[in-house]
């Protein structure tokens, strides 16, 4: 049949070239994707990283056959997205940003229904549902309506519903947004298991840490294009590891501290009294920097140790800040704030 393009590219399971998509018409027209190129290799995890409204969901919806791109081409699991949509659908699973399970059905009923819709025979569908309930630690709650589940349980069930058949490519749109750190960890474990069983994963996230934990490669989407792509370690190297931030009482103080630490004097504006300097993240390294500050005789008002946030990644790799609407728990710095006695 039609496995031409992807076969030649050996182990490529998703190949998108020049995807474009705009919503609205006339003056309302809003270009969302402006030539997105992406490649996902077999067995790999690719994280699409970007702030709210960057076009992550739009990309996933195109690649999972929900909407057609305005321009560009893509093959998924070896088949053309537009011409062979039916074959693509047999080989993928989508777990969207919105949970796609019925609150008024029980966990078991939801999974059984999905298994039947994936055309498993009755008995096999029942067995698969039970297997997934077990694997996702939901057996005890299997007979309860999903409306009584916690957010984390719903997310797990939602993910399980996408796995009734073992998909070649799994699309996960922000799988852990809104979960607490423990549920997030648990989710990552589950996702790693799925990948270990041979499914290739296309993931979107707003969390740098999530990309770091799960992904083999990260693509940063900005302005409708992939602005940077690479292994998480590589991107982080480009962004810098941990930074020391010092808030001084005056701009003069800031200038003196910056000079002592050998970093550019902060420019005007709201941030003019804050000095930022990269560290290697070790105790010795931080101590040395603080000692340098002490030698200037200036007492900082506050100091923070920050790991790079999505904002930092954007600032460094795209040259402008991510226009992220603040969301609870999004890219918060790890704070070690202490008031330094004046």
């Amino acid at each position, binding site marked *: 049949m039609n496995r031409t393009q992807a076969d030649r590219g050996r182990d490529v399971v998703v190949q998108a070239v020049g995807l474009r998509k705009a919503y609205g018409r006339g003056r309302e027209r809003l270009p969302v994707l402006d030539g997105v190129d992406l490649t996902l290799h077999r067995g790999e995890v690719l994280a699409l990283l970007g702030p709210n409204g960057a076009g992550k969901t739009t990309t996933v*919806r195109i690649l999972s056959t929900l909407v057609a791109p305005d321009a560009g081409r893509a093959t998924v699991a070896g088949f053309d997205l537009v011409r062979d949509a039916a074959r693509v659908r047999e080989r993928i699973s989508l777990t969207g940003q919105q949970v796609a*399970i019925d609150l008024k*059905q029980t966990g078991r009923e939801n999974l059984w229904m*999905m298994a039947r819709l*994936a055309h498993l025979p009755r008995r096999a569908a029942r067995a698969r549902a039970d297997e997934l309930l077990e694997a996702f630690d939901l057996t005890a709650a299997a007979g309860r309506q999903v409306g009584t589940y916690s957010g984390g349980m719903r997310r797990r069930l939602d993910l399980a519903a996408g796995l009734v058949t073992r998909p070649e490519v799994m699309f996960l749109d922000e799988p852990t947004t809104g979960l607490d750190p423990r549920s997030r960890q648990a989710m990552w474990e589950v996702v790693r298991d799925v990948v270990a069983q041979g499914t290739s994963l296309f993931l979107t996230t707003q969390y740098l840490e999530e990309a770091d934990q799960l992904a083999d490669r990260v693509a940063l989407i900005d302005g409708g294009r992939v602005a940077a792509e690479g292994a998480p370690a590589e991107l982080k190297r480009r962004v810098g590891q941990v930074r020391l931030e010092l808030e001084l009482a005056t701009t003069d103080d800031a200038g003196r501290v910056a000079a002592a630490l050998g970093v550019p004097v902060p420019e005007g504006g709201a941030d003019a009294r804050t000095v930022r300097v990269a560290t290697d993240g070790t105790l010795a390294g931080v101590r040395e920097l603080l000692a340098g500050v002490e030698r200037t005789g200036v007492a900082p008002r506050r100091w923070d140790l920050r790991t790079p946030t999505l904002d930092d990644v954007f600032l460094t790799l795209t040259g402008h800040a991510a226009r992220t609407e603040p969301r609870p728990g999004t890219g918060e710095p790890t704070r070690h704030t202490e008031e330094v006695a004046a």
Partner: protein
Amino acid sequence: MTALAIDAVTLAGRGLRLVRRDVDSMITAAVLPVVILLMFTYVFGGALDVGTSYVTYATPGIILLTAGFGAAGTAMAVEQDMSGGMIDRLRSMPVAAGTVLVGHVVASLVKNLLTTAVVFGVAAAIGFRPTAGPLEWLGAVGVLLLFVHAITWSAVLVGVLVRSPDAASGFTFFVMFLPYVSSAFVPVATMPSWMRGFAEHQPVTPVIETVRGLLVGGTPGAPQGDALADGALLAVVWCVGLAVLFAGAATWAFARRR
């Protein structure tokens, strides 16, 4: 079974489970019509002269109201599917996603059979005495199902088009209104002439008169013989025509809304 049949059966099963567990809408669909039936019979019925006992005259109309209430639940269920993530997931699977609408319609038909039985039971308890034989009963139930089917597809269309649960529930209001401007509760002859024109020619009137004719033939407002046959034909044509129209529009809108 073919894949399509499996999808349809699976999604109809889903629709039925959702309907059964939606306690609010079940209560609205079964209890409200009973309350209205009691009100009409005991509060207004005494003052309304329809030439027969009021419960005999009004029961067929109440049954149609029941269908309207049931349809509101369907509109809301479809709206919920459209705004939630379920439709997206189905569309990413090798499933004819439109069968999810068929699932809601099947569920609505079953639900209405149940709620209608409840209303019939209460009506019988307070003096509704059908004179119908088995064939007439079959005919009446058939016409009612066709009516419910048409109303349900209009509800599905509303559910696909609207963007909020409130808008979907607002649909009840409109559907509830139709039977009032028909021969459901008072003879059309008692209405002002401009309204009579609408009441005589809207689809609810032939449906009600056919059901009356079949169940309590010979009472006022219940046609017999050729008049009944003509009315029944008109009722069937209306119901089938509207169902085709609404189902077509709903399917079309469903395919386009992304």
